C-alpha cells in the first residue's frame, strides 16, 4: 500500500495540474457568476412584471435540473442545433450559467429580507437607481448572504468534478487517468479527495470569517 502511494506521488505533476485546473475553473466561474448574479438579481426584483416573471422562470428551471443534465444539454444538444463549442467553453459556460441562477436567487432572498427602511434612508439621502443599489443595498445583501454564497461556492467546486465527462482535465479527470494507468484506484482517489477537502475547507474557513463580519456589520 505504501508502494502504491509512492506510485501516486510519482504522478504528482498530473494531480497538481488537475488540482490547479479545478482551482482556476472554480475561481473564474465563481467570480463571473457572482458578477452576473448581481445583474440578474436586479431583474428578479424589477418593477416590470414581465421582466421579473420571465427571469424568475429561467432561474427556477436552472435550479430544478441536475448540473450534469445542463452539461449534457450544452455539450451534446447544442451541436444538433449547429452550435459547436469547445469542451472548455461548454464546461465553463455551463458552470457559470448554473451558478448564476443560484447566486442570483440567494441575492434576491437576502434583498427581500433587507429592511425597507434601509432603502428608504438611501433615497432620503439622495440615492436612486444603480447608485442606491451599489452603495447601500448591495453591500448589505452581500454581508447578509455571505455565508450562503460561500456554501454555494462549495457546491460549485463539487459540481466542477462533472466536467471530466466532457474531457476537461480537472482534478477528477486526472485522478481517474492516474488510477487507470497504474491501477491504484484507492490511493489515487484518497489523494484527490484530500485535495478537494483542502479546497472546500478553505472556502468554509472564509465563510466562518464572513459570519463574524455579518455579526457586527449586518442589519439587526
Amino acid at each position, binding site marked *: 500500500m505504501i508502494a502504491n502511494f509512492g506510485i501516486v506521488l510519482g504522478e504528482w505533476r498530473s494531480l497538481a495540474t488537475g488540482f490547479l485546473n479545478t482551482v482556476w475553473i472554480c475561481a473564474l466561474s465563481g467570480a463571473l457568476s457572482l458578477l452576473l448574479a448581481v445583474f440578474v438579481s436586479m431583474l428578479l426584483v424589477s418593477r416590470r412584471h414581465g421582466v421579473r416573471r420571465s427571469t424568475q422562470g429561467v432561474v427556477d428551471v436552472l435550479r430544478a435540473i441536475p448540473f450534469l443534465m445542463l452539461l449534457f444539454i450544452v455539450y451534446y444538444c447544442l451541436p444538433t442545433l449547429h452550435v459547436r463549442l469547445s469542451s472548455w467553453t461548454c464546461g465553463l459556460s455551463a458552470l457559470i450559467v448554473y451558478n448564476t441562477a443560484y447566486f442570483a436567487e440567494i441575492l434576491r432572498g437576502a434583498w427581500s429580507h433587507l429592511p425597507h427602511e434601509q432603502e428608504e434612508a438611501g433615497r432620503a439621502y439622495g440615492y436612486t437607481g444603480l447608485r442606491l443599489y451599489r452603495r447601500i443595498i448591495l453591500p448589505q445583501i452581500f454581508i447578509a448572504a455571505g455565508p450562503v454564497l460561500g456554501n454555494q461556492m462549495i457546491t460549485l467546486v463539487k459540481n466542477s468534478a462533472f466536467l471530466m465527462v466532457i474531457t476537461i482535465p480537472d482534478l477528477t479527470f486526472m485522478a481517474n487517468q492516474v488510477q487507470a494507468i497504474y491501477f491504484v484506484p484507492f490511493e489515487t482517489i484518497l489523494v484527490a479527495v484530500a485535495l478537494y477537502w483542502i479546497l472546500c475547507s478553505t472556502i468554509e474557513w472564509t465563510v466562518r470569517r464572513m459570519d463574524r463580519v455579518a455579526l*457586527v456589520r449586518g442589519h439587526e
Partner: protein
Amino acid sequence: MSDHQGQGGPVVEVRGLSKSFGPLRVLHGVSLTVSAGRTLCVLGPSGSGKSTLLRCINFLERPDAGVVLLRGEQVGVHRTPSGRERAMTDRELARMRTRFGMVFQQFNLWPHLTVLENLIESPIHVQGRSRGEAVTEAEALLDKIGLRDKREAYPSRLSGGQKQRVAIARALAMRPEVLLFDEPTSSLDPELVGEVLAVMRDLTREGQTMIVVTHEMGFAREAADEVMFIDEGVVVETAAPERFFSNPATARVRQFLQRFA
C-alpha cells in the same frame, strides 16, 4: 449651516397637501410655513398623518395634490430656464432630497458602514464633495454630539441614543436647508431620550431650521417657535407654543392636552 443664514423668508412652504393610500385619506389640504432658523413641532395622535406629512415634504411619498416649496423652488417640478415646467426625473428629485436632512424614528443608520462612513457617505457619493473636506466636517459634527471616540465603531455597537445622535449628525453632514425629524425619540428607552433632545435643543438655538414630528410635549413647549396640531390628516390648530399649551383655541387640542396634564 452658516451659508444660508441671514436669508429671511420661508425655507419650507407647503400648500394644500393631500395624500391617500387607496381609500384611506391620510392628509387633506395641509398647509404650513417654516421660516429660516425656526422650529415647527407637529403634534397629533398616532395615525393622524404626521409621518406621512414629513415624507411628502421631501417626496419620499408623492403627494396626490398640493405644492411643496423649498426656498421658493417647487419640489418634484423642474423649471427650465425658459420657464417651462416638467416633472423631475428620479435623479433630480434625489438630488433635491439632499437639501432636506431626514432623521427617522428607527435611526436607519447604514449598518455596513462605520459611524464616520455613515456621515461622509452621501456628501461624497451624492453631493460630490471631496473626501478630505467631508471627513473634516464629519469629525467636527462628531465632536459636537460628543461621539468622536465612536468614529470607527459600527452602528450595531451603539446604544439607541448614540445611534440617533449619529443619525442627526449624518443629516447635518449634508448641510441641509431644513431638518425633518420623524418622532426621533419614540423608539428610545426613556433614559436615552434626554441626550437626543439635548442635541436637538442645541440645534434650535443655533438657528437650524427644523420640522419636528414628536410626542415630546416638553420639547415642543420649550424649543418650538410654532406648534401645529393635526388630526385625521387635517390641520386643527397652529399657534405659538405658549398659546398652544396654555390657551388652545380648539376643543380638540384641549382634549388632547388633557391626557398629558
